[in-house]
């Protein structure tokens, strides 16, 4: 699963930066086109829900999604991993 912030819904209140136990959300620096400073994701692959949700079949932490007043945080299914063939030339 992949963590994502909906840029159209987020209003930049930074509540997610307060509650995440892994401190994945960092206060943003650049305002977007609507003038909202959206939090940045710092290595979102550390999120427990991203890694283990499909294995356990339920939401594991989800505090950021619950506390987000704008319903902007969600998890989306990632595309299946396609192994690439790497040709090594000697």
């Amino acid at each position, binding site marked *: 699963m992949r963590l994502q912030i909906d840029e*159209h*819904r987020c*209003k*930049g*209140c*930074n*509540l997610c*930066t*307060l509650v995440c136990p892994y401190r994945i959300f960092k206060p943003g620096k650049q305002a977007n086109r609507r003038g*909202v400073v959206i939090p940045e994701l710092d290595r979102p692959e550390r999120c427990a829900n991203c890694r283990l949700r499909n294995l356990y079949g339920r939401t594991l932490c989800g*505090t950021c*999604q*619950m*506390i*987000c*007043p*704008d*319903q*902007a945080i*969600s998890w989306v299914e990632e595309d299946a991993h396609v192994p690439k063939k790497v040709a090594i030339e000697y």
Partner: protein
Amino acid sequence: MSEEEWLRQDRLPHIFCAGCGNGTVINCTLSAVEQIGWKKQDTVFVSGIGCSSRAPGYIAADSLHTTHGRALAFATGIKLANPALNVVVFTGDGDLAAIGGNHFIHACRRNIDITVVCMNNMIYGMTGGQGSPTTPAGGLSTTTPYGSEEPAFDLCVLASAAGANYVARWTSYHVRELTRAILTGLETPGFSFIESLVQCPTNYGRRNRFKQVTDQIEYFRSHTILVEKAGRMKEKGEEVPAGMILSGEFVRRNRPALGVRQ
């Protein structure tokens, strides 16, 4: 079905200010409704007037946006007309405690089978920050520029005394506990009252030294104490520190309820 399907996608993003806690309470309520497994066609969300009362407008179930303070009166009518419906009332502190105070105590007395989620932001947020009956003593607002001198209403104690079957208080920081409390409230037959303190960064926080949204959430985190713990402290003869918000389950009992499906 997921929580996202309960939201009216075309209505989002909602008009609440950045960092308003009402959105958090909507999340928690929808999560609880989702867990109890109610269908959209059997669920009605009712609200009065105010910031918090805009919530049913963002939920894709039948909703009723009624006159100021009269949400409980309309909800009583819905429940008695068709007891098969599940009724949830969203209300604010001005709506419930000030203009609808009489409806509130009588709904508690009748013990009608509805769930009331009160988003208490301690101020009239929508109309420009006037003091409400739940503005804490010393709180600044446009009508109390030198600090509120009146004692505030304790809505949970009021509901317990008036006879509600389930009464709990949490804040918008305690999302897990709030969801669990709302779920218990939905399951309980009879009047369930869940008060949630929410932050109002625009009108309350700005005037009361909570400049950032996170400041008020930090305050909720550090200034809440469980009812049970406060009781234990009193038994030992210790003083509960002043200014602490009592949170947790106040009452759970089984008085005969009105409007319960037979």
